């Protein structure tokens, strides 16, 4: 075999391995986000949360075992096992093809988005810095926005295929909500891109470029607090989290689009929802919290230029992501849900005009700044 072909095959194989590893980590974080949701919810309400599940051998280790059991660390296994082994009834009145397809369509974009999200840095043999990312494409942000909004198709399809009233309502609400907040989200990102792509910058539309732009200056949450706020609110709406969980609305729509689903199909929607939260948190910390940058206002860089530095950068990035996930959960158990018309009002009458105003404001600021340089 020629060396070039061998090289190509190794590259392809390595890509598969990396992709598997990233997906495994993402699923792990997702499972434990579900646990964190239950645990934090309990703590916020003065309860303890899940603390009963135990694995036979590990739980019997003297001090660590009961501690892990108390934290509920085995709970995700039990949850996943339950979803896997439950019977999967298909109601007679559903459209069978789309009913089966919907969970897949919901799941795929949720896992696909992680391909363009960088999660750390590494230095090659000559000391040049590269992002740790599955696909370092130039238009990462555009790709992510495009793919993540595909997630709504799963929900709409589920709502329609279920062929009953509550899921249908959930699906309709979901599509209306997604369209409304997508606009504000994208418009709130434009000032961010303008800020990062000053004269001489090569940031472009890639996440790595935006993080690099923040490494040597302010984090964008301090430079553009309004953009960050609009993006965060839109992010809550896009991930269907309370106070915007219109598609689900347990209290009024039973379970919204997932009413007719059970067992593993429900589990897939569930995992997709939480994967969206994890990826959303990662995107927010990349765009506004400087990714793996250590401190907001300085170019101080504590990472040694070797594999240990890479690990540190990943760790620091994960700290930010986990804090944001906690923030998501914290908001959920603090605020009540908006009414449907309120959601529409906030989206169209407040967030969108605000985002456009924000865009014009920063356009002027940057124009004046660049003209006076």
């Amino acid at each position, binding site marked *: 075999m020629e060396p070039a072909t061998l090289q190509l095959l190794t590259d392809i194989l390595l890509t598969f391995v990396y992709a598997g590893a990233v997906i495994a980590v993402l699923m792990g974080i997702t499972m434990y986000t579900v646990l964190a949701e239950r645990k934090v919810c309990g703590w916020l309400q003065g309860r303890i949360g899940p603390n009963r599940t135990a694995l036979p051998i590990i739980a019997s280790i003297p001090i660590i075992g009961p501690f892990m059991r108390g934290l509920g660390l085995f709970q995700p296994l039990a949850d996943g096992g339950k979803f896997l082994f439950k019977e999967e009834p298909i109601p007679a009145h559903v459209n069978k093809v789309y009913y089966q397809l919907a969970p897949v369509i919901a799941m795929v974009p949720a896992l696909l988005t992680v391909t363009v999200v960088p999660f750390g840095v590494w230095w090659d043999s000559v000391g040049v810095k590269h992002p740790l990312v599955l696909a370092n494409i130039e238009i990462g942000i555009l790709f992510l926005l495009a793919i993540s909004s595909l997630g709504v198709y799963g929900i709409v399809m589920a709502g329609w295929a279920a062929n009953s009233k509550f899921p249908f309502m959930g699906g309709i609400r979901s599509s209306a909500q997604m369209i409304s907040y997508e606009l504000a989200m994208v418009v709130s990102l434009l000032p961010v891109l303008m800020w990062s792509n000053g004269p001489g910058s090569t940031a472009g539309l890639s996440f790595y470029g935006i993080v690099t732009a923040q490494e040597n200056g302010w984090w964008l949450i301090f430079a553009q607090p309004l953009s960050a706020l609009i993006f965060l609110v839109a992010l809550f709406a896009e991930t269907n989290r309370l106070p915007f969980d219109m598609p689900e609305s347990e209290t009024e729509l039973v379970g919204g689009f997932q009413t007719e689903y059970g067992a593993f199909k429900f589990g897939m929607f569930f995992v997709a929802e939480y994967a969206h939260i994890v990826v959303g948190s990662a995107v927010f910390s990349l765009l506004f919290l400087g990714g793996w940058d250590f401190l907001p206002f300085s170019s101080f860089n504590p990472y040694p230029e070797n594999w240990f530095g890479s690990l540190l950068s990943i760790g620091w990035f994960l700290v930010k992501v986990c804090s944001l996930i906690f923030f998501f959960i914290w908001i959920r158990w*603090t605020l009540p849900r908006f009414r449907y018309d309120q959601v529409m009002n906030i989206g169209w009458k407040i967030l969108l005009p605000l985002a456009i105003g924000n865009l014009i404001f920063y356009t002027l600021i940057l124009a004046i700044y660049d003209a006076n340089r």
Partner: protein
Amino acid sequence: MAKVVDRKPLTWAEHTYLPQIVGGLKITLTNLFRKKVTLQYPEERPVIPDGYRGIPTLVKDPNGREKCVSCQLCEFVCPPKAIRITPGAIPEENTERAHIEKAPQEFEINMLRCIYCGFCQEVCPEEAIFLQDTFSLSGYSREELVFQKQKLYEIGGTLPDKHFKWDKKRSAAHAGNAH
């Protein structure tokens, strides 16, 4: 007179709702660090207050003697008809208590019927039946949950009693003025 509540118009900051949201977040965050109220049930048990109405049982007096005289008042008062008594005499050989009163031959409480109302305890002239502090009761069959006399005494045990009625009655009988 109607009290007029002065509703001030919202300030600009309040119109954005953000200060309110931050306030709410603060409240939930303080809850996070508060002592948890959960009682981890099978390991930790709640404190049962006095006068709690758990399962009804028969009790013995401090001398270990049966107090019930099978008057059947509890049987009659029991709203769900959970109690069934077969009265019987105390055998002659029992010199301690013979000829003084009757005693139940059979005493059944059907725990599946019992509604824990406490009427039996209230009506009992001998203070022989008491509602205990046991609140969780389970079994594998219906027969198992129809408690017989022996089982009722087992659970009930002895309660402190200041009357010592049997002693009084016996001394009265010895003095020749029984009833």
